[in-house]
């Protein structure tokens, strides 16, 4: 289900939000990318922000689908992208096993290929591409909120 609506509040720049609901299967990652492309146009998301959001959506969904513990297609994920006055806010909610990406230790940089761990890069990329990352668990759901500030003048 794809929803996009405008909420006209009494602010100079009314917040607008787009939402999509997905199931926990890998093919849904492509649907999320397509939703994001449509949302970029509807919310006038600048290209650099849209790319940063796309990286975070990809990594978060891959984690939930591959490690969230839900059987193929039986878990639920909701993505919401909201335009705030000076930023975009991405919320990712899922009903999989509790997982707080903000608790993942910051990895040190491997000094050589031989030392490099082939994994753990996803959370690192989310930290790099989002300016802020907050996690809370609410009524058995993981709720991850990522913030992407707009460049000055955008």
């Amino acid at each position, binding site marked *: 289900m794809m929803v996009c609506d405008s909420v006209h509040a009494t602010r100079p720049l009314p917040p607008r939000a787009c939402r999509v609901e997905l199931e926990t299967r890998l093919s849904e990652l*492509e649907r999320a990318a397509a939703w994001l492309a449509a949302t970029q146009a509807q919310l006038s998301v600048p290209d650099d922000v849209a790319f940063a959001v796309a*990286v975070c959506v990809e990594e978060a969904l891959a984690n939930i689908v591959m490690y969230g513990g839900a059987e193929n297609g039986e878990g639920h994920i909701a993505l919401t992208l909201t335009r705030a006055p000076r930023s975009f806010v991405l919320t990712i909610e899922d009903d999989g096993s509790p997982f707080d990406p903000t608790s993942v230790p910051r990895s040190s940089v491997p000094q*050589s290929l*031989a030392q490099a761990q*082939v994994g753990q890069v996803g959370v*690192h990329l989310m930290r790099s591409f989002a300016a802020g990352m907050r996690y809370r668990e609410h009524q058995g759901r993981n709720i991850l909120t990522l913030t992407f500030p707009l460049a000055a003048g955008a």
Partner: protein
Amino acid sequence: MGSLEMLTEEFGGGAVKVVLRGRFDTTGAIHVEMPFNAIVRERDLVVVDLSGVSFMSSYGIRVLLFGAKMVDSRGGRLALACPAGNVAKVLQSARTNELIPVFPTPEAALAAVS
């Protein structure tokens, strides 16, 4: 959207060029993982042309790192060529470029691995 395409070209001097085109997202990386691994298990000089790649995921990085480790462990070399702006940004964020050499053209990468 669609998945990631992989083509290989003999590059002379025993080197092989692997050309990837499309989104190196999770789905794309799963799609090319086996054929890519087959190449890095056999070949000692590998150039991966990323010019046609529009998106890079951690799974994509995992495939590249595994390949580089595999080739490196036999004393061979794997290099990346011409990642586009956003893809280069992801490689830098993950510091992949500090582990696998990146060159502006496939020819420069070939010269470096040969």
